[in-house]
């Protein structure tokens, strides 16, 4: 018998901390869920891991975190200072001259680094990389001292055109380091060597604001785990779905902006690929939002940029997650024109839906699900709420939705779900049809506690092939932590005509980027089962400002010949796919080179999660209750985790498990596959 090799994934969310333990040696997996200890995350974190295994026996802990995201959204980041090119102190506050919403001229903007902590120094680089004026080192040091005296705990330096030539930034970094008292110091060309000063300044500034916060958080966690005997690797999930070392996360905390959700998408890709459905759209129904992402051929789509809130732009490759304000807590109302609206306003977790009995008075999607019998009011998921107050939910729906629309309570609850489902369907269309993907090819993977309540309706609305409900939908992100690869990305602006690109020089540039990124993998001290290298170019016709992503077909290690004809063919293929036409006689331009190096980590054999061999349908049958599907129907209720492999259940039915509820609509049936996933399809 081999020694255990335990890996624990930990996803700390706002309400719950989810853990997933996997023994790579034996293939055994276990899950655990406990309430998050906000502000004292290290305590709940260590307690949670200790509940699953002796820390000394754990070889790796992989963490998905929302600490960084919350600090940015709640404006609880550290005080940071910015040193920038003379004349450009206000780039961060001027944004791209946008506004919060199209209609109505309200809403102001608080920059992440306040104006009195933004200093200018003489220096100037031009667009072609030539240096018009070298940086004044003494001015940099004076500015750094002043910013520190004014309370800055972190420092960042952003100069114009540093993507084209970082020399002035590097000289400034050297000068500032000599006087800056801590390690929280960075230059924009190290964080994002890409053209567009606002996006680069925003990303670099948000990184600075996070460095002290995330750095301290991770240090406290690491200390606590080590003190309790943990001697393994501690890794953090990045927004791109790969993991990084704690040291990298402390230097580049902005890369944790979508850490938790990205881990969920990674898990979905793995689960779906194992189940032979590699084309997937994930749908995570949370309290306030519905998060959607697309996975094609087992690979999650990546986005180059995300806006966390008005004016808070993070530009770093991340798993593309489209969020709309339609979750369980989304509020339903009838507007002055007599139209039923659901969300984006949310009751959140406080006061929460009316049925929680915590003071919520406005009806939500969850209230509608309770009133229609879809959620078990006597035994809500998560285990921290006693029972739900279905009658209060019904009263609120009747008063605020039913009466104004002339509908009964039941009809009004049904209408709330219909509108909510239509909005969720819109988000699914956004990532599929709108991007040229035929939904009939895709499998919906609902996760989160409530995702599987809406799966049937979404299949019908969007025309998706089927839904796959993973065995543990409520701990998907924690599972993703365990299996995520280590991944490092780099973008570098080239901004050259295709005709003027020397393929040999480009090849050398790609190899250099790959070598730098590989060194990051080496330094992490993690054993990988394999490595691969990916390169892509951002290209356009000359004159366009937006680019299309052009992946380069290369060998697994990134090697392979490059020539103009191949680059042009790759561009034309990508352009035609995006816009349905090509332009004749217009020259092409290469804006950016994007490189990624991926260190592959061992994957879970998901069969280890499969139902026990002695499971039976009869034992899983819990009884029945009335559920509304346009009319009230006596609907059987099953214990989902007790269903045997191969079981087929005809809708209508409700499947319950501690962390999720699954609804099988009439006309659908659910089949338990060999991994314990539930596959929902139209009944033959």
């Amino acid at each position, binding site marked *: 018998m081999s020694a255990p090799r335990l890996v624990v994934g930990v996803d700390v969310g706002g309400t719950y901390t989810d853990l997933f333990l996997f023994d790579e040696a034996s293939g055994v997996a276990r899950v655990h869920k406990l309430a998050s200890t906000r502000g004292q995350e290290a305590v709940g974190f260590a307690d949670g891991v200790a509940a699953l295994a002796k820390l000394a026996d754990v070889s790796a802990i992989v963490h998905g975190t929302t600490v960084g995201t919350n600090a940015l959204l709640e404006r609880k980041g550290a005080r940071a200072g910015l040193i920038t090119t003379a*004349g*450009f102190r*206000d*780039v961060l*506050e*001027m944004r*791209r*001259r*946008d*506004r*919060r*919403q*199209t*209609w*109505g*001229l*309200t*809403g*102001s*903007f608080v920059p992440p680094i*306040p*104006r*009195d902590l933004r200093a200018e120094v003489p220096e100037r680089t*031009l*667009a072609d990389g030539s240096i*018009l004026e070298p940086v004044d080192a003494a001015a940099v040091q004076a500015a750094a001292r002043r910013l520190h005296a004014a309370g800055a705990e972190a420092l960042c330096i952003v100069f*114009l*055109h540093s*993507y084209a030539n970082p020399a002035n930034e590097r000289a400034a970094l050297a000068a500032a380091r000599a006087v800056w008292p801590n390690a929280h110091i960075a230059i924009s060309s190290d964080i994002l060597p890409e*053209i*567009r*000063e*606002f*996006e680069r300044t925003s990303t670099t500034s948000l990184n600075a604001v996070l460095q002290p916060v995330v750095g301290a958080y991770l240090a406290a966690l690491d200390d606590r785990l080590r003190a309790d005997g943990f001697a393994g690797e501690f890794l953090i999930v990045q927004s791109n779905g790969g993991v990084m070392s704690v040291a990298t996360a402390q230097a580049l905390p902005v890369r944790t902006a979508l850490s938790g959700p990205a881990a969920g998408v990674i898990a979905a890709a793995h689960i779906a690929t194992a189940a032979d459905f590699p084309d997937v759209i994930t749908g995570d129904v949370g309290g306030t939002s519905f998060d959607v992402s697309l996975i094609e051929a087992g690979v999650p789509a990546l986005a180059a940029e995300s806006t966390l809130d008005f004016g808070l732009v993070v530009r770093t490759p991340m798993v593309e997650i489209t969020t709309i304000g339609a979750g369980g807590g989304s509020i339903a109302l009838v507007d*002055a*024109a*007599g*139209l*039923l609206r659901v969300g984006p306003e949310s009751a959140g977790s406080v006061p929460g839906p009316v049925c929680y009995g915590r003071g919520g008075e406005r009806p939500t999607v969850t209230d509608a699900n309770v009133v229609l019998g879809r959620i078990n009011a006597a035994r809500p998921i998560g285990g921290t709420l006693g029972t739900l107050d279905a009658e209060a939910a019904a009263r609120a729906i009747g008063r605020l939705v039913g009466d104004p*629309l002339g509908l009964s309570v039941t009809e009004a609850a049904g209408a709330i779900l*219909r*509108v909510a489902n*239509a*909005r969720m369907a*819109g988000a699914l269309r*956004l990532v599929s049809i*709108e991007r040229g993907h035929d939904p009939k090819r895709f499998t919906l993977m609902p996760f989160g506690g409530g995702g599987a309540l809406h799966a049937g309706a979404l299949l019908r609305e969007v025309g998706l092939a089927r839904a796959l409900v993973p065995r543990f939908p409520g701990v998907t992100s924690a599972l993703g932590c365990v299996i995520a690869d280590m991944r490092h990305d780099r973008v570098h602006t080239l*901004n050259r005509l295709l005709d003027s690109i020397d393929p040999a020089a480009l090849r050398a540039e790609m190899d250099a980027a790959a070598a730098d990124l590989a060194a990051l993998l080496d330094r992490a001290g993690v054993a990988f089962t394999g490595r691969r290298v990916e390169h892509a170019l951002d290209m356009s*016709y*000359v*004159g*366009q*400002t*937006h680019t299309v992503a052009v992946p380069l077909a290369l060998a697994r290690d990134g090697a392979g010949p490059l020539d103009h004809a191949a680059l042009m063919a790759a561009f034309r293929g990508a352009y035609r796919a*995006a*816009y*349905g*036409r090509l*332009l004749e006689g*217009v020259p092409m331009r290469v804006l950016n080179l994007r490189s990624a190096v991926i260190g592959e980590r061992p994957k879970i054999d998901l069969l280890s999660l499969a139902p026990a061999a002695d499971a039976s349908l009869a034992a899983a049958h819990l009884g029945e209750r009335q559920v509304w599907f346009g009319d009230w129907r006596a609907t059987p209720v099953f214990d989902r985790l007790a269903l045997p492999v191969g079981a087929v259940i005809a809708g209508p039915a409700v499947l319950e498990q501690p962390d999720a509820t699954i609804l099988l609509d009439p006309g659908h049936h659910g089949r338990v596959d060999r991994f314990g996933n539930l596959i929902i399809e139209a009944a033959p």
Partner: protein
Amino acid sequence: MDPITLAVLKGRLEQIADEMDATLFRAAFNPTIAEAHDACHGLYDAATGATLVQGKSGLPIFVGVMAFATKAVIDKFPDAVDGDIFIFNDPYLGGTHLSDLRLIRPVFRNGSIFCWLGSVGHWHDVGGAVPGNYNPAATEYFQEGVLIPPVRLYAAGVLRQDIVDILRAASRLPDIAYGDLQAHLSALDLGVSRVAALLDEYGVATVAAALTELRARAALLMRAQIAALPDGTWSEEDFLDNDGRTDMPLRIAVDVRKSGERLTLDLSRSAPACAGPVNISRATTVASVYVALKHLFPEVPANSGVLDPVEVIVPPGSLLDAQPPAPVGGYTETILRIIDVLFCVFARMRPDAAYGNAYGTINALSIAGRRGDGRRWVLFQFFGGGHGGNPEGDGLSHGNPPIATAIIPPVETMEAAYPVRYRQWALREGSGGAGAHRGGLGAIYEIEVLEESAEAFVFAERARFAPRGVLGGGDGAKNVVRYRQGGVWTVPPLGSKVVGVALRRGDCVRLETPGGGGWGDPASRDTAAAAQDRRMGYVA
């Protein structure tokens, strides 16, 4: 129609327009569309051209004018067939100015037109005397660019290459015009296929009923909003600096009569038509009223039902009813002033939702020349300013104008594309109007020419009359435009409008843009907010 299906279809229809917007923005060549989003898509009524649905990301002012543009095509081409695509930029028929090319395409179903799709965007250059087409000295539209009347670009699915050749020949930047044209066509292709899929799914009758119902509900909601206002009469007026020819202020006046559910906005006391290019067509005037009302009542859906209970009186022969060949290139300035006046009058009618004026000018700058190798370059850019203080808080600093959702291209992109260097890109301290809630700050931009020679053109406003505060709030700072030739700074004689400024290497143009007007009595400003203003240097 049942309200639930209606809500579902509303979302689906808006998504179609949004998706067309996104396609054009990504595929377009000129930064005014690609980066600044000076474009719009929508669905328009088969018979009347009325706006049925508009995207959320398109330029607000187009929502109203595209109805007139579609109507112009309907009137001229009763013989439209499936596969036709029409193109034009005639501002007297379709509103706004010559830079805005409109592509209009019918969507056929069962042999008849179900609706029209429109795709409009601001092209980089359409000829005329001034590169980029903002010519403050124009006295006829011929000096502003080439006017294209409504013509068939595609006839029953077949491209008319001769029209493409004319469009290319009209522009100083033919390749960019060609690229933008292709991008519009991609957006229309996509819209047609999306509408077809929706009709397949829900049926013609259901979708048509939803469109009718949405318009009725917008009108209903607008009536309810009007009914909640006090009855009475109010008047406000403000002025444009001048028409770009003669330094005489031009009055924009509104007399409001409100009774029950009816609202009359009478613009009759506004100035007569002028020699310079701040005239606007009737279509543009009506559209600007629509934009103001949508800002004041943001919850009303974006379709032409908003205007049903509103009577807009446009005086014939005034600068708000331009007739050809009166120049209209500076239409943005006039509509911004209409919106300012309406904001001021509504601040009195409904003080709890008052906005201070936003900065009130588009600040169009073009700098053009030839590179060392003889290639022509045309930098064209709009600049930002402050928004007004409002009940929720201080005005936004460096916002976009109320008529647009445009964003500004980055300095690095501009410097990579054109032989210029930005010397400064900063907030303009002290430019926000004082108030309990201060106006947002304007900005300072200073741009230096790096080539041997170039010419600059500025078309702006608010150099003479400041953006106004409301409910006792102070005015924002006025616009200041200057240029430096050989070390000597000059302010244009007309304030913020100037043509053909000869610049040599090292010369520069400097804009100091207006802040927004303040909201409420400055003496009642929160002391912590006032201290913060001083610490951050937001106030002088």
